């Protein structure tokens, strides 16, 4: 038992043979996944394939029915909805998990990183969808986590705001050195952000796709189109393309 609870890695994420069942339905079927330090892995898959289930396991919100999961203790989640406390102003929402006298100072810095300096005193209901999601990002990053889990964080945003958020994520990765797992069903979002893309189906993860493209090539290039076609094929959508 001690061998199982003993950590094996210094950094990153290790998921081994993880099983998760809901009644008779096996959602995660002996799934393996590793995430390197400072790597951004995108988990791609259709709705209801178990992406969020896996993310909740990594977050420690649920326990697996089998297998082993190893994650850093310092981790943060950005959910699909902003999940801001409507009765707390923006700044207090960001300081929710912080301790110490410099909490406000750190929260202000985190808010300015997501371009929301000056909005500290706003109520969440006064924010637009994109602003609220940026506050959620700030709330996740303010504790300087080693792992950031993003559960379709931009799915509810409009296309233009989503592109701005992608730029913001790239910028934040330069300042924060954390491993990231981004769950999405958007192939273009995956290509825009990932170091590595894994496609999930039937409770397992398929062959990984490494993405080593420049920012410009991610926008438009032959390699991008090939990657896109390969991802669509993995998702079983090849015939439509």
């Amino acid at each position, binding site marked *: 038992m001690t061998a199982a609870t003993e950590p094996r890695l210094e950094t990153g994420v290790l998921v081994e043979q993880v099983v998760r069942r809901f009644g008779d339905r096996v959602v995660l079927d002996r799934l393996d996944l590793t995430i390197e330090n400072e790597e951004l892995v995108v988990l791609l898959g259709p709705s209801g394939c178990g992406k969020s289930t896996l993310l909740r396991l990594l977050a420690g919100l649920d326990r697996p029915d089998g297998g082993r999961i190893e994650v850093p203790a310092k981790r943060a989640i950005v*959910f699909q909805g902003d*999940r801001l406390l409507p*009765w707390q102003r923006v700044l207090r929402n960001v300081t*929710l*998990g912080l301790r110490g006298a410099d909490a406000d100072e750190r929260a202000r810095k985190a808010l300015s990183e997501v371009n929301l300096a000056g909005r500290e005193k706003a*109520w969440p209901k006064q924010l637009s969808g994109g602003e609220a999601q940026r506050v959620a990002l700030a709330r996740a990053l303010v504790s300087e986590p080693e792992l950031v889990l993003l559960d379709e964080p931009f799915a509810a945003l409009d296309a233009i705001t989503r592109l701005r958020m992608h730029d913001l994520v790239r910028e934040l990765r330069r300042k924060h050195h954390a491993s990231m797992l981004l769950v999405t069903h958007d192939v273009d979002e995956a290509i825009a952000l990932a170091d590595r893309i894994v496609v999930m189906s039937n409770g397992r993860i398929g062959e990984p796709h490494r993405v080593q493209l420049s920012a410009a090539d991610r926008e438009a290039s032959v390699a991008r189109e090939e990657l896109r076609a390969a991802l669509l094929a993995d998702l079983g959508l090849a015939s439509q393309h």
Partner: protein
Amino acid sequence: MSDVSLATKPAAFDLAPTASATTPSRVREVFLPGDARRQTTFGTLRRRLRWPLGIYTTPVVILIVWEVLAQAGVLKPTYAPAPTDIAGTTVELWNDGVLGADLLISLQRAGIGLAIGLSIGIVTGVLGGFLRVGEYVFNGLAQILNTIPLLAVLPLFVVWFGIDELTKVLLIAFGAGVPMYLNLFAAIRGVDQRLIEMARTTGAGSWRVVTRVLLPGAIPGFLVGLRFSLAYSILGLVAAETVNADEGLGFLITQAQTYLQTNKVFVGLVIYSILGLLADQFVRTLERVLLRWRPSYEAT
């Protein structure tokens, strides 16, 4: 409506195509800035004058009609004395020193009863809301007490606690405590689970979760409970004071009833209703302060 017109249109086309071309076939709407008119001082003045009394328009209209009918002799004084008569009686009673003393003792009873009832309701509500043990201990009892009418326990209270102040205060406390417990319990349990989950993932400890998520999230429900508690405490006050009292508003009413002094009965009723109104205003003010974060309160 549009279906009907569409169905008849082809026939109209056949008969007179030129006629249908001249009449506008599609209903259109044009929207212009609504606040263009409001900005003028004349406009604001007119808006004020249109409903100068707000929600109190209907009560005032009823009072005027009542006064007119009473003055005309349609309503007999023993049946319903004129509002001016009631006001006169109020002043008279106040000057005699009767009303002030009665009001004071009634308010004192209501205050003590409310304090006891709200304390018990809030403490048990918080325990029941946060702890499963608390739920098992208090919830069944509160649900049973909730089904027992306030007026039905009065005779029992008289037997148990005598005919003195204790019965009256406990009856008010009973009326105030039960709705406070039920609403606070439901409010705490009703706080969005996703927010609690989120708070835990940020690394906030239990104390943080309670003080920043659960308690503020339960405040709307708490205020609903407070509203009910205040209303029931006044109900309890009336019930307690009409049965056995030698002072207080209820005594004033019972005594007046015995001597057929309808105007004095109305004085008591008016004061009760004013107490109710004040309680409502108090909760409204609390809402304005505590629920600032709600978008509906931003406008005011």
